């Protein structure tokens, strides 16, 4: 009896210890850590040689762990909402293109997500667990980068943006949309702005544009209380500048310069809680960028969290957080077209171009694609138009008066996804204007077809 009792007792202890071990094995041992990118000394621009490290903010000096062993370069880490997966851009060898990699923080394993011939960078997790990233390419001999999405294993690759822009630095807003920096590259290069769009590539629109030649140079990250933090600069090819915040509710007109009056520069920012941020900052150009806490209410740099010999940038807090909304998709690949409607092309905040006749009332539009002119369409008496366009083909629009003189435009590049239906108040109308409640005359009949793929009926077919 005594022996049996001892045996049971020992078995119970063994089971208990084994359970504890199993539980702890399943735990993410980096909970509460900061993951960041350490750049080699003297390397401010290129990410070659960058390393992913994890640091315990409570005990930074003694807790540094290298997460990107065997990588020539690893950067741009982003954490999944459940806190388990880390995605980043990485390359094993110097000559490799950048690809997207996934690290399972529980299993401590790393796997490759993309295997493409082009550079793939700036990943972010979508709320449904897919990954969005930027893929370099070219169009009309101009370098661009385009947003794509795929599953965590790289399958089901889908293109999301279709304009000749450099799209990168994505993040996901709480409302489920993708926020990204975008700068037109063709036919002329323009400064980056923040655009926002749904995760299926529909409904892209302006989110933020800098003032007086300034533009975002980092991704924008939204805090729990609805403020988007980012870095802004007014110099091209610079990845540092001032710390900015905008209110997600009214992003175009709520800009606050948090670094006003502060010496030094910022490179990255992520919001924490209680008006605190974690920033990559250097007080002077003689010092490397390091991680600091920042009080956004007092607009003060607080204590240093971690520093290294080289720049430390792109911090991420390892903790689970509330998942953004999963937005439904109306994209239907079976339908190769989209529908575009404008209420009144004369509703615009852009001044009309000077014309010989001084007639600034537009009564028609010209539609252009990358290859050039497509077609001209007369609008209705109320200024409305209603078009059926090829999906995933970028177009631009110019408005003209009855004499054929250009009044406004060309517009920014627009694309519609398959089965997307989009409405505009005007042509470059105030983006904060909601539509008038009236039936646009143009929708009382079938849409005018503008297509290179379809016969256009009463419109001339565009020759390839």
């Amino acid at each position: 009896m005594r022996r049996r009792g001892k045996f049971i007792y020992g078995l119970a202890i063994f089971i208990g210890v084994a359970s504890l071990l199993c539980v702890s094995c399943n735990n993410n041992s980096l909970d509460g850590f900061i993951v960041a990118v350490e750049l080699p000394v003297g390397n401010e621009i290129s990410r070659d040689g960058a390393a992913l490290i994890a640091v315990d903010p409570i005990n930074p000096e003694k807790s540094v762990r290298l997460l990107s062993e065997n990588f020539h370069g690893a950067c741009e880490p982003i954490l999944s909402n459940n806190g388990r997966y880390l995605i980043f851009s990485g390359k094993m060898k110097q000559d490799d293109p950048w690809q997207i990699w996934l690290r399972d923080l529980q299993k401590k394993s790393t796997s490759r997500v993309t295997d493409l011939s082009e550079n793939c960078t700036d990943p972010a997790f979508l709320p449904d667990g897919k990954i969005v990233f930027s893929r370099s390419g070219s169009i009309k001999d101009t370098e661009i980068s385009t947003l794509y999405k795929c599953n965590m294993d790289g399958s089901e690759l889908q293109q999301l943006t279709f304009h000749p822009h450099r799209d990168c630095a994505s993040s996901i807003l709480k409302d489920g949309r993708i926020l990204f920096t975008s700068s037109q590259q063709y036919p002329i290069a323009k400064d980056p702005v923040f655009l926002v769009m749904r995760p299926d590539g529909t409904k892209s629109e302006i989110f933020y544009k800098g003032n007086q030649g300034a533009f975002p140079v980092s991704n924008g990250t939204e805090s729990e209380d609805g403020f988007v933090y980012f870095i802004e600069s007014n110099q091209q090819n610079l990845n540092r500048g001032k710390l900015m915040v905008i209110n997600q509710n009214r992003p175009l007109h709520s800009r606050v310069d948090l670094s006003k009056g502060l010496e030094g520069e910022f490179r990255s920012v992520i919001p924490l809680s209680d008006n605190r941020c974690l920033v990559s900052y250097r007080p002077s150009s003689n010092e490397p960028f390091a991680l600091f806490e920042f009080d956004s209410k007092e607009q003060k740099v607080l204590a240093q969290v971690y520093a290294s010999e080289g720049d430390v940038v792109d911090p991420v807090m390892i903790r689970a957080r509330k998942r953004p909304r999963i937005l439904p998709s109306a994209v239907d690949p079976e339908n190769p077209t989209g529908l575009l409607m404008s209420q009144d092309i004369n509703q615009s905040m852009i001044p009309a171009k000077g014309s010989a006749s001084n007639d600034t009332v537009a009564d028609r539009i010209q539609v252009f694609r990358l290859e050039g002119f497509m077609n001209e369409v007369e609008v209705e008496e109320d200024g409305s138009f209603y078009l059926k366009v090829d999906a995933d083909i970028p177009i631009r629009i110019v408005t003209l008066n009855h004499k054929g003189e250009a009044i406004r435009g060309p517009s920014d590049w627009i694309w519609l996804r398959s089965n997307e239906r989009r409405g505009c108040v005007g042509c470059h109308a105030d983006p904060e204007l909601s539509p008038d409640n009236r039936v646009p005359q143009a929708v009382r009949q079938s849409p005018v077809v503008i297509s290179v793929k379809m016969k256009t009926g009463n419109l001339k077919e565009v020759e390839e």
Partner: protein
Amino acid sequence: MKLLRTIIILGLVSIILAYGIIHGGKKARAHVYHITAVDDHPLKCLSCHLSTQKDNFLARMISEEYISPYNLSLSQDGDQLYVVGQESNQLLVVDPHEGAVVKKIDVGNRPHTVELSRDERTAYVSNQWSDNIFVIDLKEARVTDTLSGGSGPAGIAISANDEYLYVVNSYSSDISIFDLGNYREKRRLKTGNNPVSAAFSPDGKNVYVSSRRTIPLPYGSPPVTEMTVTDTRSQRVSERLMFENAYIMENVTVTPSGDLAISTLIRPKNLIPAIQVEKGWMMTHGIGIIERKEDGKMVQLLLDEPNSYYADPFDIVVSTDGKQAYVSHSGVDRISVIDLAEIRKLLEESTEEQLQTYSNHLGISSRYVVARIPTGANPKGMVLSPDGKLLYVAERLEDRIAVINTSSLETEKTISLDGPKRITVARHGRQLLNNAGRTFHNQYACYTCHPDAHEDGLVYNMAGKDMGRNLANVQTLRDIGDIPPYKWNGKNQTIYKQDGMRFSTILTRTESFSHKELDALVAYIVTGIKNPPNLRYNPNGELTAAQKRGKMVFYREYDNFGNEIPVDNRCYTCHPPPYFTNMEMTDVGTLSETDDPMMFDVPQLTNIYESAPYLHDGSAPTLEELWTAFNDEDKHGVGNDMMKDQLNDLVEYLKSIRDASHYMNDTMIYNASTSNKKRKR
């Protein structure tokens, strides 16, 4: 042997059980798939079958009697708060300092507003579903008199000298003026459509009456809602001010200085193809302002922001110094604090053209909205303390009052009204129906298009396949639990499917309801929505002579020439009691040019009198037009042989049709096929 037998029996039982579980599981999955139209809804029998019980023992067991505070009034010394319990049919007297209910006085059915006499000895409570106003002696805490005027009494305003009581009648669309000396209705004045609120100007010269629904207009017009201004000296309507492109003006107030009359309102975008929600494409919310001076401006300003909307503004109160206004947003659980000095400045410096633009501008609110205060679920009526330091807010779906400090703009405390602590599944569903959190950027709640779980009287361009096609008249949610299918085209067989994934893809454009939320929403829609009594046309079931004649027309089988009316073209075939729908698809010859070819789900006729306009696309503004304008070929019942008085009688009968519960014993069983079936009356 015994052991072997036991093993065999156990084995057989296990096999039977396993088969039952697997096979039963498959059947259950198929059943749930049919109901919900998704293949991953949890197989929880109770979540559907228990929480959708209506009137039986189980339903009584799981339901609760909530209070649902609606409007408030406060004594002049701030020591007594009077709260209308809309669902408990009570007037609650609350000590706001102690934070406790001190008295409960039973009032009529669905009370709406409470107003105190100037001497505070008497309270007047409008009972919207009893068609009367109770006069309550506050000292004795009992009803001493009953006033009767128009139908659906709602808002109340009392003259400064306690001489007259103005009562807004929401169903008969008029205002009763009662002489408080003899408690008789002295006069009745026509107002806008579905008026709900009344407010005296501080000088007592005018009463402003705000309305919810649009005035009758040519088909395809944007809504126009009337603010009726009465002259209190002549007791006549002095002005009918029209707010264009606006409706649901729930409450009106006048600033202490009298310079502005302000109402909450919604600016719908029902005529625009519903192809997106971004940038205020479906609904915007704000206030309407009337400058009370010669050539004063009348403007509308939004309270929304470009990426954040403040759905369903309900009440508005102005601080005693006239500098700030507070607006409760029932759809987003927020109070907006408005700087009225900025509003006045905006009015002064802006041209008419600019103000016209501002009425659609989502960024303009940053000029005058100074704060947004979070509240509990579904904030409704509000009242300020006499010193202006505290704002009391009825949190309707929390059964409590929030007390907000107007300096810190934070909730200091909440006062429980001693409602049930348990939130039932249906109550949760009601909270979801009233909350805009499940539409993109909180732009609108189900309640927005279905106020009081009814319909808003508008036709929407739902942009089915192409834009500009398949216009849809909003349908009521009352009684729909028992009458599938749903949508005018009958495509959704269950409420689960109606409010499921497709709903989020096409209408709300954000993440769909979770399974648990959908269960709750369905439970509320099926069990929690009550039909108001039809006191206006059929208060007690005894039909008038005209209604009886109309009933005979409704049930006739031969036309005026003695020809037999085909069975499938008789009124009662498609519209049999108790719900007056056979729940089938039909073609009554009402397809328009903008409709795709389709048949329509037969709508119910219960309380049809308050569901104008009619037909799937709202093209018939009144019931008469169904037969005078839209039935050339007698496809919607045989009507071309009718004399005008027969048609009038038929309409009177239709208007008398009330809640389905009155017709449960009066059913007619018909089949939609051409063969004549057994009929029982």
